[in-house]
């Protein structure tokens, strides 16, 4: 019984760590620094927008001062995912950890696994989830706003305009729009330079049946795939070919393509997986080409 009482007292001290006054320390952006594990008061999914009131370091990046959107999905411990809508770019997802900031605020920090561009993120939240949150978003990004490989560094920050909790009921765990990046891990045949590219998926789930559309970037060709879902895991395939594939004057022609895609999603709305894409056809000058490449998803999250 004594052991149980001690255990309870210990559990109480751990569980109520948030009742102790927070240590005063300066906010040191851009370096994740988790503190003692306390149950998160922010568990769930949130969406919002923030003002870009400050932008330094790159004329290109700072030309746009549009308000930017963001989403957060946070679990009951100290971890989560933030997605930030970048000016003229595919939004970037960042795994974040929570820590306690100055004055009792909550600080979420993380660094993207996507490296072109790469984001170093800090979100500071204050107030009450029930009566309203305020805060700031600050990120440093390395890369070019137009996707070129040249390296520029910029820091953008501003106050949160609004943030709200989002409750979504889904019949299937995979349902929804997913976006992020894919990096090529292998390629044979007529391969291009193969930088990390933007990907978009639309998953429609009907029980274990899965229909998906896939698109490279926002304006690329769309591919329809079919497959099956089992819990949070899935497989998708596609085989396309046309029997007669004559050259078209000064136009690339895809005569065959195929996809084999395996992946899974987690409770933080992240998708992981790899897919192999094969393509054969006629190039701009009518010459045959073919390639087979393997891609790994990087920073793919569900759009909230």
């Amino acid at each position, binding site marked *: 019984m004594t052991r149980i009482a001690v255990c309870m007292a210990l559990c109480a001290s751990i569980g109520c760590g948030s009742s102790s006054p927070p240590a005063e320390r300066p906010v040191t952006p851009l370096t994740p620094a988790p503190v003692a594990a306390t149950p998160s008061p922010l568990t769930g999914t949130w969406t919002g927008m923030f003002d870009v009131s400050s932008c330094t370091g790159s004329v290109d990046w700072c030309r746009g001062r549009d308000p930017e959107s963001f989403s957060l999905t946070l679990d009951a411990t100290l971890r989560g995912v933030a997605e930030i809508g970048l000016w003229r770019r595919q939004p970037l997802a960042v795994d974040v950890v929570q820590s306690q900031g100055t004055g009792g605020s909550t600080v979420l920090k993380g660094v993207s696994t996507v490296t072109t561009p790469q984001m170093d993120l800090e979100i500071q939240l204050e107030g009450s989830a029930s*009566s309203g949150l305020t805060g700031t978003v600050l990120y440093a990004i390395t890369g070019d706003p137009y996707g070129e490989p040249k390296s520029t560094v910029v820091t953008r920050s501003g106050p949160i305009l609004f943030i709200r909790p989002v409750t979504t*009921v889904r019949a299937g765990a995979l349902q929804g729009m997913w976006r992020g990046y894919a990096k090529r891990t292998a390629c044979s045949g007529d391969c291009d330079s193969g930088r990390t590219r933007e990907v978009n998926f639309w998953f429609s789930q009907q029980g274990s049946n899965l229909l998906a559309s896939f698109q490279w970037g926002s304006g690329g060709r769309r591919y329809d795939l079919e497959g099956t879902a089992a819990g949070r895991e899935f497989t998708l395939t596609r085989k396309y070919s046309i029997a007669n594939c004559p050259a078209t004057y000064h136009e690339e022609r895809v005569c065959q393509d195929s996809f084999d895609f395996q992946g899974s999603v987690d409770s933080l709305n992240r998708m992981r997986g790899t897919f192999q894409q094969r393509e054969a056809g006629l190039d701009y000058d009518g010459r045959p080409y073919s390639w087979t490449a393997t891609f790994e998803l990087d920073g793919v999250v569900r759009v909230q």
Partner: protein
Amino acid sequence: MRGATVYVAFVSLALIGVACGSSSTNVPSPTSPTLTLNPSPTDSAPALPSFQLAGIWTGFLKITEATGSAAYAIGATFPFTLRVAGGPQSYSGQFELARYPAQYVNVGVAGGLRDDGFTMLSGSVTFGARHADVSELMVRTDDTTGLNGTIRFGQRGPGFNDRFKAQILSASLQPSSAFPGGAMEGHWVGEALIKACSGLCASRGGSTREVELILKQSGSTLSGHGSVGGGNSSCSGPCWLPLAGSADGYAITSLTGRLTRELPADWSGDRLMVLSDFSATVDDLGRMRATFVYSTEGQYFQGDPNRDAPGATRLTMETVWLTRTP
């Protein structure tokens, strides 16, 4: 002994609950902001989902029939949004298909529950020379897909008349779209019709402009940013006017904005943009109906190919649709 152990454990757990629970009653102060317990937002795929029709649905449909210029779209899938309020006897809603092939379909719908379990909704909108309609939207909730049914819709305008039939494949439900700040808060996106124009008005009557409002609400006070589309070469992308105004319940009683920009001498575009005379109401579906005046002054091409001349335009506008991003 065993009973005493259980009792101690129970009391200890109760004390923990009380002690921890007390933190949820902390009131944030200006000097010491604290986070209290959350309203438990979730993002889940429950084992036994329970769906109601009222709410905001985002899902996918597959085009099964198409006539007109978009006949090649048969077999393609597209995302849609359906907002529904009310009950079985009388539902109202808004159907939105924001992507090609039917980017203009954003239609208010209404209807009720039929004997076969499907809810039948329909509606149309005409603005300028364009018309869009949902002639038949039959939907019902489904534990496997969230939502299923069919829809017949179309759009027509100068040079096009497209009609589609589609199957609703699946959808997810947001039961509530409430914002903590109030009914006006959020990101509003839509289209507004130019009802009247004075000043430089060539080819502007009856046309539409994209409208975006990003509003923060604190009590009755509104602030944020707004843009009214158009060829604004003085900005990189949309010109965002800083906004300030006030709300009363579900109405915006005032909202004004003013932006001045430097414009190189040899550029066409707006140097001054002013939003005024703004009046609007919103509903629980996240729809706003607004009228406003958008005035610009700047440097514009006025017929002489070698010279842009100063000019001013005053547009009286009314929203065709303006919905809050879910």
